[in-house]
């Protein structure tokens, strides 16, 4: 773990703020994710953990602070002291380097599994279709669905859909993967198959930010754990330590309920 301090910082958040109307969802979030690290964010609903995740790929615009991925500001460009908003096309280019997996899968229902996985690299990165389809097949095999390439999402279970969603994000060959409660919408017996795929990704060295309620996963796979409440990071540290010996009252109260 000490080696991580010398590693490249992929995500850097400094005092990130975000409001929806009068509600402050994020009230100054500071955290860092280094290359190859798996950061798990836990916390009660409404704590701002999903909002923060969505800020990382600019699905939400931040209102204050600084947020950068790979040294580049998310959604903005700095000229002198001023921040300029990026144009749609530039934001898209930033997003293309970041994969995201959603709680409700959000697969494209009018496309087969293979089409879901192979679409974006072709139309966003302009890669040749044959190359992409070959890669898509390999990815589907890797998530254990090599035999379901021609299936439509509604012909598949939630667990299968989520694994395809992971393959879809990986097809863009991202340098960072965001997971927004990837197992929360699944039947209990399907959770394992998705977590297995995520564990495999972590072992391959993918940088991951995972918002989750799976404390077991956080303990086993996570390199770092962050507990968020009311729009701020309350506690951060090694997952084993935070889970076993929480320092803050709020962390203790939350963990007492979920563990």
């Amino acid at each position, binding site marked *: 773990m000490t080696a991580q301090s010398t590693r490249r910082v992929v995500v850097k958040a400094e005092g990130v703020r975000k409001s929806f109307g009068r509600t402050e969802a994020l009230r100054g979030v500071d955290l860092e994710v280094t290359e190859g690290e798996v950061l798990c964010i836990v916390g009660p609903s409404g704590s701002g953990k999903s909002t923060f995740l969505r800020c990382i790929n600019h699905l939400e615009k931040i209102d204050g602070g600084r947020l950068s991925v790979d040294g580049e500001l998310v959604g903005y460009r700095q000229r002198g002291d001023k921040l300029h908003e990026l144009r749609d096309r530039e934001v898209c280019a930033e997003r293309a380097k970041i994969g995201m997996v959603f709680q409700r899968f*959000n697969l494209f229902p009018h496309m087969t599994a293979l089409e879901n996985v192979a679409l974006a690299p072709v139309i966003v990165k302009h890669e040749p279709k044959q190359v992409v389809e070959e890669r898509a097949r390999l990815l589907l095999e890797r998530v254990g669905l090599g035999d379901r390439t021609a299936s439509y999402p509604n012909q598949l279970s939630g667990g299968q859909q989520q694994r395809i*969603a992971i393959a879809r994000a990986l097809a863009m060959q991202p340098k960072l993967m965001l997971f927004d409660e990837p197992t929360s919408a699944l039947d209990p017996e399907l959770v394992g198959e998705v977590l297995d795929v995520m564990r495999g990704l972590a072992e391959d060295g993918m940088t991951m930010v995972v918002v989750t309620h799976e404390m077991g996963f956080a303990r086993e796979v996570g390199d770092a754990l962050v507990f968020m409440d009311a729009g701020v990071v309350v506690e951060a540290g090694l997952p084993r330590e935070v889970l076993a010996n929480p320092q803050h009252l709020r962390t203790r109260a939350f963990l007492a309920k979920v563990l």
Partner: protein
Amino acid sequence: MVVLLAAMLVHSLVFTDTTRGGVRQSRYQWGIVGHYFASQSVLQGLVVTLELTAIAMAIGITLGVIGASMRLSPNPIVSGASWLYIWFFRGTPVLVQLFFWYEISYLYPTISVGIPFGPAFVHFSANSISVFTAAIIGLGLNEGAYMSEIVRAGILSVDEGQTEAAQALGMTRLQVLRRIVLPQAMRVIIPVTGNETISMLKTSSLASVITVTELFEATDLISARTYYVVPLLVVASLWYLIVTTVLTTGQYYVERHYAKGALRELPPTPLQKLRRRVASFSLRQTDAVLESDPFLGSLN
């Protein structure tokens, strides 16, 4: 009750008789209907009606997609322009709009294409706009306003998560719309568009007021000459019904195409339905045999 009413209707269609030239015949004069049904001028009118409907709908759908995309744009000038267009063309009767396009050469004698307030590349006299073109412009622009709202409703019916997932993959606004949102919006848009097409088929008869010789105008011209008013109304109605039937069937297949992925199993085509019904009928007969036979029935 329904059967009785139907019988009365059929009776009236055939036996409401009159004497014309010493020969008793149905007031509907089915012989005359048959004579003009496939006459050349009626068929020519039919072709014009089909052309009007097809071109006006094509313009309408194109404008509808553009109008809806603009209306949903975050840019207030873009969405405002779309709002204004819809407001104007939905707010005035299409009949009035048709007359307006008919009179366009009075308002703007020459039309030129070029740099606004600068040099023009092409000049042409508005008089050279034919009544057919005027009808197409009128019907198409009016339809575009309605289609805009239909397409917008379709776009709004697609789950927000779809847009987010597509954006997260790095797709631009236009790519998200074209690849992800519109194909799914089709499920909502197609049935209503089918309805609009059928409506347009009949609305196109309004083009007769600006002297376009479409189906209704063609039959009307014949009845003005021959005084066979009712038979030619029947001729026009029959053709409208026939085309509507064809369009309805086509709509069914288009809807079926866009159900891909939304339904686990596609609904059967009418032909498949018929085959299944025949199959289940023969099955039921074997069941009946089984039930009537006490020995075989007890085996079940």
